[in-house]
């Protein structure tokens, strides 16, 4: 059976950063999904013209509720519309869940390192939340690279102390006052302490823009992490 396109209504929108938004959709008939999976979103213009793009699900399955995180790209066809123009109460079409590889399942017991660049944090956040929901005691670490403090996603939730999650923010352009690490892109030294805490059999999930994912994955393999334990998702 082909996966159907379902109508999903926008029921809420919240700001994550000055540009990025969390969208909450209600998709009747939604079959559920795993943390890390994505959906295809299809938009239709009045004259029938359609455009579709992929967006990761930012939260574990919760009935027919879908949470997305959209970072609009300048000049983009779909993302600025989703982030700012789609009216609450109106609908788009969704198809999914998609992707059975970049996923975390509660049965997984090995330690996990999540490495997020910008909006790449969205599917990793679903994993963080699924991990918490399952009350899993496996070690979880998150490294979230953003330009500056104003670009932090899920700020409040990730800022809350959580014994099961170790969060580290990296600032690439502007470090907040008091930071010991100067602003700059991800380096081997940023990954080293996290890798020390990860057993060799631990899994690393890397998500973000292609340049970020390439750099992070290269640093990880150079540091001796087995490529077979590294899963990547590139947003294009």
């Amino acid at each position, binding site marked *: 059976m082909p996966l159907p396109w379902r109508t999903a209504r926008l029921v809420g929108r919240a700001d994550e950063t000055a540009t990025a938004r969390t969208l909450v959709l209600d998709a009747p008939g939604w079959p559920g999904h795993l943390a890390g999976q994505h959906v295809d979103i299809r938009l239709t213009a009045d004259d029938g013209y359609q455009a579709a793009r992929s967006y990761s699900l930012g939260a574990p399955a919760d009935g027919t509720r879908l949470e997305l995180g959209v970072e609009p790209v300048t000049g983009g066809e779909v993302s600025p519309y989703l982030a700012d123009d*789609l009216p609450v109460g109106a609908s788009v079409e969704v198809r999914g869940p998609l992707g059975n590889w970049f996923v975390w399942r509660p049965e997984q017991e090995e330690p996990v390192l999540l490495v997020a660049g910008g909006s790449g944090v969205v599917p990793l956040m679903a994993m963080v939340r699924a991990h918490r929901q399952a009350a899993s005691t496996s070690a979880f670490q998150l490294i979230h690279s953003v330009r500056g403090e104003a670009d932090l996603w899920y700020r409040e939730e990730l800022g809350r102390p959580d014994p099961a999650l170790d969060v580290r923010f990296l600032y690439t352009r502007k470090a907040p006052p008091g930071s010991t690490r100067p602003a700059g892109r991800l380096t081997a030294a940023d990954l080293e302490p996290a890798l020390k805490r990860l057993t060799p059999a631990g899994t690393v999930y890397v998500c973000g823009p292609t340049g970020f994912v390439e750099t992070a994955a290269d640093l990880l393999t150079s540091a001796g992490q087995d490529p077979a334990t590294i899963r990547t998702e590139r947003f294009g």
Partner: protein
Amino acid sequence: MSSLSPGFHGRRRSTSLTDRLPPGQYPTESFPVLSAGPTPRVPTETWTFTVTTETGEERSWTWDEMLALPQEESVHDIHCVTRWSKFDTRWRGVSLDTLLDDVETTAEYAAVHSYGGYTTNMPLEDLLDGKAWLVHTYDGYPLSPEHGGPARLLVPHLYLWKSAKWVRGLRLTPDDEPGFWETAGYHNYGDPWREQRHWGD
């Protein structure tokens, strides 16, 4: 008022482009990178390409041997299952017809293997008759590692995940053996014009 994406206009394209665009795809000028894990770095000094038949017979080429085979330049539109298409991409490499020319086989399928462990599968006939290449040059330059260099398969009539990056060989098999994405939810064949993206499509 229709409540389906009201106010969405999108980016119209000339019909000369849309005729070349499989359903559900959009054209891109950039060259996105998609793969399941880190980019393997494969030196050409140790690179080999091996065809193994169903009886276990092997035929291998080193990098220099591969380059000594007749080379073809070809231009293709390529289509990624993540919905981007790229028109008029220019490649150089060896036709699979050349590589499979004197291979004795009655196998109907090919299991493609890559450095880094990636696999994909397709009917053997999709690799023959001028439909597939082992490419090492993109747009006049050596193929970069993130795009599958030193060499990748190019099967432009199927979704791009069939065009295995960092390819190291083919195994000819009597039975179809679904590969990496094919076992993880992607369609077993992957024809962009029939929108065969996922299981059941």
